[in-house]
């Protein structure tokens, strides 16, 4: 009888790999290094807080749909909350990006953390872009009309049609938020695994 050999199941292998890669005390630490006590280190979590408000307000908007958020005062409130949390999200994310760039935050085997952050930034721009396309006003018409020519020029206009409201709404509320949330989640797990980068 083997006493130390765990059951050869894929769930067991995944669990052991997950615990080895990210032990619980690293996943949910209760202390941080002293150098984290600086305002410049708070912009990552501020970005996460803004993202949470974006997802919650977007979820409320999705419950009742465009007719509601254009015509009801409560709907306009949530529509505005969705916009302004997005503005704050990008504001905090850009300051976070500057701080990490000037800290050379890819040091100490943190290249993947840096890259996932950069890609999350780019995908967030695409998510915001499809949000502007689904405002259903002259602004979104103008943005769609201008973007159509650029996207046709690079050959993807047939697959990603910025004048197709339904397609852009689905990209905005399903595909791109999943990508952003997945990238941000992976980014945070990498920060947990490798620790917060020390100052230069």
């Amino acid at each position, binding site marked *: 009888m083997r006493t130390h050999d765990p059951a050869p199941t894929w769930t067991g292998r995944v669990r052991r790999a997950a615990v080895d890669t990210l032990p619980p005390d690293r996943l949910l630490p209760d202390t941080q290094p002293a150098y984290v*006590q*600086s*305002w*410049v280190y*708070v*912009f990552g979590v501020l970005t996460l807080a803004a993202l949470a408000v974006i997802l919650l307000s977007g979820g409320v908007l999705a419950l009742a749909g465009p007719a509601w958020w254009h015509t009801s005062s409560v709907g306009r409130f949530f529509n505005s909350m969705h916009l302004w949390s997005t*503005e704050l999200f990008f*504001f905090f994310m*850009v*300051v976070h990006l*500057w*701080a990490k760039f000037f800290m050379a935050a890819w040091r100490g085997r943190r290249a993947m953390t840096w890259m996932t952050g950069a890609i999350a930034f780019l995908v967030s721009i695409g998510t915001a872009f499809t949000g502007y396309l689904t405002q259903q006003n002259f602004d979104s018409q103008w943005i769609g009309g201008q973007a159509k020519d650029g996207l046709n020029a690079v050959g993807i206009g047939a697959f990603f049609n910025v004048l197709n409201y339904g397609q852009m709404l689905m990209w905005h509320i399903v595909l791109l938020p999943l990508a952003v949330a997945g990238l941000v989640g992976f980014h945070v797990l990498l920060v947990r695994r490798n620790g917060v980068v020390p100052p230069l």
Partner: protein
Amino acid sequence: MNVALLAAVVPLDGRPRYVHHGWFLISVANLVVIVAMIVVFALSIVVPFPGCRKRQ
């Protein structure tokens, strides 16, 4: 409630203003946000964090 109290400090439904000098063209709104980000970034470096002890 007085509706005027809810109005934005800066009128948001007028024509947008731009800063234009030669090849340089940017809306005032975007310029304000960029300047605010730079100011906040600089302040976050120099302003001490609450409860942070000075290094010996």
